[in-house]
């Protein structure tokens, strides 16, 4: 008796019935697939497989980009493109009209430029500090320390939290009658207007964002550190190379591909900052923490006169920045691969 027949007998009557139905169902696509293989050959068959994904990509990625361009070139408050008058580059011109780009208050749309500058400063501080802290944390967690698994989990845990939850937790800590001020008063110090002072509020948005996302980047760097062969460090130890030199000459160059990934991912994410800050400060005090995406949201959805065209034009400018960052990542990755 063959093995298949024996297995068939072991299944019993219901098992055989279920297996038969299952096998028949599995055979259903076989005929059309054979037909497609015979007709399309290998060159075109690939399109059949990527086709569904291309349709999804076209519908949910490419089409929205096209719609965004249409909205950016039209005005009015109507949502349907057919009802929107063509205004050409008027929306872009309105956003870019400025006497002095360094002073948002001199620009026609000052809120946009507050958003641009706030985002630029945020990216600079948040990305820079996050990479430093992530690297330092990864280096520590890569060592044989007590409770290493526990600490790895602790640093990664905030990544699992919803941005709204993160922002609410910190809001309760930082508000005037919050936990932090209560602690300060407990030790006899004066309370601080953490979210009312523009500099403090900006600093806290940077800090909270780093706190929430650092675990993810630490994980990438940790994986990079663990991929570095141990024998290189053993050779360095035999040569009595000082630890600082080991870090700068061995660890950092070998970690560079991972650092590049972290840099670009962090940059893209920082440019898109919205949810945590929206809940934590609402963009205040004044416009001190109004970032670019919040400007887009306010312009398109939070005003009585919904200026979808202006919001779309700002989105296009943001997309251009993200495109440059993505191309930079691709270039750097290729350059890094060529260097070996």
């Amino acid at each position: 008796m063959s093995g298949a027949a024996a297995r068939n007998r072991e299944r019993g009557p219901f098992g055989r019935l279920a297996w038969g139905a299952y096998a028949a169902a599995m055979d259903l696509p076989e005929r059309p697939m054979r037909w497609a293989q015979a007709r399309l050959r290998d060159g075109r068959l690939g399109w059949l497989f990527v086709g569904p994904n291309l349709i999804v990509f076209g519908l949910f990625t490419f089409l929205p980009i096209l719609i965004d361009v249409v909205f950016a070139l039209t005005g009015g408050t109507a949502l349907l493109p057919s009802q929107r008058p063509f205004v050409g580059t008027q929306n872009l011109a309105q956003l870019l009209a400025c006497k002095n780009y360094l002073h948002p208050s001199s620009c026609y749309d000052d809120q946009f430029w507050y958003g641009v500058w706030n985002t630029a400063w945020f990216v600079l501080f948040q990305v820079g500090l996050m990479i430093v802290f992530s690297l330092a944390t990864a280096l520590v967690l890569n060592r044989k320390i007590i409770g290493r698994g526990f600490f790895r989990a602790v640093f990664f845990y905030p990544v699992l939290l919803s941005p709204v939850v993160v922002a609410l937790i910190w809001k309760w800590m930082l508000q005037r009658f919050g936990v932090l001020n209560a602690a300060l008063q407990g030790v006899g110090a004066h309370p601080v207007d953490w979210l009312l002072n523009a500099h403090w509020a900006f600093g806290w948005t940077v800090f909270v964002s780093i706190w929430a996302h650092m675990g993810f980047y630490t994980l990438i760097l940790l994986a990079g550190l663990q991929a570095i062969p141990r024998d290189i460090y053993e050779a360095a130890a035999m040569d009595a190379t000082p630890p600082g030199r080991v870090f700068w000459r061995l660890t950092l160059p070998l970690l560079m591909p991972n650092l590049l990934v972290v840099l670009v991912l962090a940059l893209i994410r920082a440019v898109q900052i919205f949810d945590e800050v929206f809940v934590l400060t609402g963009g205040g005090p004044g416009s001190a923490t109004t970032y670019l995406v919040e400007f887009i949201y306010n312009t398109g959805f939070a005003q009585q006169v919904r200026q979808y065209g202006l919001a779309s034009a700002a989105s296009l400018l943001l997309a251009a920045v993200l495109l440059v960052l993505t191309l930079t990542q691709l270039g750097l990755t290729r350059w890094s691969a060529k260097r070996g």
Partner: protein
Amino acid sequence: MIRPNLAVLGLAVPGLAVLGLAALTFAATFAPAVAAHAAELRVMCYSDGNECAVYADLAKGFEKQHPDVQVRIDTVPYAQITTSLPVQLAAGHGPDIARVTDFGATGKYLLDLRPLLPDAAYWTREFGPVLDWMRQGPKDTGIYGLPTQLTITGPFVDKTLFEQANVPLPGPKATWDDWAAAVAKVAKATQTPFGMAWDRSGHRFAGPAISYGARYFAADGTPAVVDPGFEAMASRFVKWNQDGTVEKDIWAATGTGYRDAFASFANGQIVLYLSGSWQLTRMDKQVGNSFDWVAVPNPCGPAACTGMPGGAALVGLKGTKHPKSVAAFLDYLAQQPVYQAMMERTSNIPASASLQKASLHYGLSAAGNAALQVFLQSVQSLSPIAYHLQGYKYNQVIFNTTANRLAQAIAGQITLPQAYARIASDLRQQLAAAKQ
């Protein structure tokens, strides 16, 4: 023997899953239509207190009279009404009825109920002035919704703190300057963090500004927000925020959008809270007997002693497939016994002319009833400018830019003259966009 291969399995399983999902979607879409009522009315509703629950309860009476209609009240946060509803309506996918306050943003999507109502004259007689707020212009005579309440802005005061500080409550003709001085004195004597807080809203600011002479419109009727009266109140308000008389967090620490200061008042952190009559249920339930609270008449200025009128309405929406049922449901709610029950159970001031004269039995405490009487009396002292501003189609543009630009001035980001210039340019720019 057939042996399933993995590649085929990989294609077949997702394929079957998609087919199953499609079948489920089909069933979910078409099955209820067979089983359910002939008409299902979806009502998008937000609550200040218990409004949506009361409407749902009252809808049962309507359903008994109209067994072929089912009313579903979908309770949503207020922010969804202001941000999501207009987008849904623009995309042609809104509810049948919605409870709204911003009639300008939803104006072009409103269903004219007049031809569908059995007695439109009753509506005009009872709700006449408020129906104007929902209209698109002086030539528009449509009836677009049922006013669910008339609201009046005005201050609530923590009387216990005044008594503890041994400071008398300023009289009915006291100015905002008198009140600012009094609450600062009380706050200092009782070590209360702040004298007062105003909801972060240009609507709340408008009452005091009109009292100090702001007119909001030029002689030709076009909006002209910044004038000496507006500047008089704006400069005072910014100064009070900066010297600690007003709780700065409410306006300055919020980037954009609305924020109320109820929690500060309920927690005893302020002496005076400028909000409005819609807070009565919350005051009664959440503050209760924690301290003695009273509503006081709107403080005066050189020009008036006014607050701002306002209100919400249940409006019918053009996209509905059941316009007759929408009109029938709103007409049911508008009839005096039902409307009276609605007002009494939600503790709201009626927009109906005959009920404004009748004595209603609210389920409020003695303090709540006393406060309600103060708001009812405040209706008499409302300035015509306040009514005109409330009825202006783009009033939210004025209110939003006022709040945002003054908040920037309070935060020290721009000066007051810069804020005035930006209020004027924001208004110009947004009105131009609206006309495109």
